[in-house]
């Protein structure tokens, strides 16, 4: 399995990406697709757009490393991660994670793991454009708590 990992300015086609993961094979029983969408308000204030900055080079490498970790934890048959950068208007897609597996538990767990990772450790930063100008979004405690779920105790390699 060759994972698809892309960082791009342009939008993505979630359905076309999911179709690529299952085409011509009959071992996939479960496909989980997560699409992250730009909301029209942040902390109760309407926003005009988000701008996503990233660290080119590091972002790709770090995402690939976490996709590999997901593959060692769960029996995945396909993984796609696409993260946009640049200016993104409310209602537009930001991020896509697709996981395919024989069984749903692995597909769900891997998709959540990758999203928790992208929210907290992948080198992306979101800036909002609002009425009062621009502001950088602060990291959220509950995202960090979600990511901490996946930490393994030292020495414990049990899958799932």
């Amino acid at each position, binding site marked *: 399995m060759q994972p698809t990992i892309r960082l791009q300015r342009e939008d993505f086609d979630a359905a076309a990406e999911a179709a690529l993961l299952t085409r011509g094979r009959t071992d996939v029983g479960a496909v989980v697709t997560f699409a*992250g969408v730009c909301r029209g308000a942040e902390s109760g204030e309407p926003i005009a757009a988000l701008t*996503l*900055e*990233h*660290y080119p*080079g*590091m972002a790709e*490498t*770090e995402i690939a490393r976490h996709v590999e970790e997901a593959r060692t934890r769960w029996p995945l048959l396909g993984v796609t991660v696409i*993260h946009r950068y640049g200016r993104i208007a409310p209602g537009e897609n*930001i*991020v896509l994670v697709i996981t395919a597996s024989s069984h749903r538990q692995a597909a769900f767990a891997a998709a959540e793991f990758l*999203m928790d990772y*992208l*929210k*907290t*450790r*992948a*080198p*992306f*930063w*979101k*800036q909002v454009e609002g009425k009062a100008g621009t502001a*950088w*979004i*602060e*990291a*959220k405690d509950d*995202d960090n708590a979600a990511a901490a779920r996946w930490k393994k105790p030292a020495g414990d390699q049990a899958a799932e």
Partner: protein
Amino acid sequence: MKLVYFAWVRERVGKAEEEIEPPASVRTVAELIRWLRGRGDEYAHAFEQAQSIRAAIDRSHVKPDAAIAGAREIAFFPPMTGG
């Protein structure tokens, strides 16, 4: 070595990257941050809250006590907010 800055660290420093040559006494990321603070108001402002700054050496996350010897590229940025 090359320093690169992102998000509000980049905005406060006023540039996206630069070449620096810190003295040999600067051995860790935390020491580099202290040294950078002395380079001017913009650096003092960017690095005033060291606990809000994350660092990467050659594109891998590192902790403040990481050694900088041999680093080609050191990045400073706020906590990540992707996804």
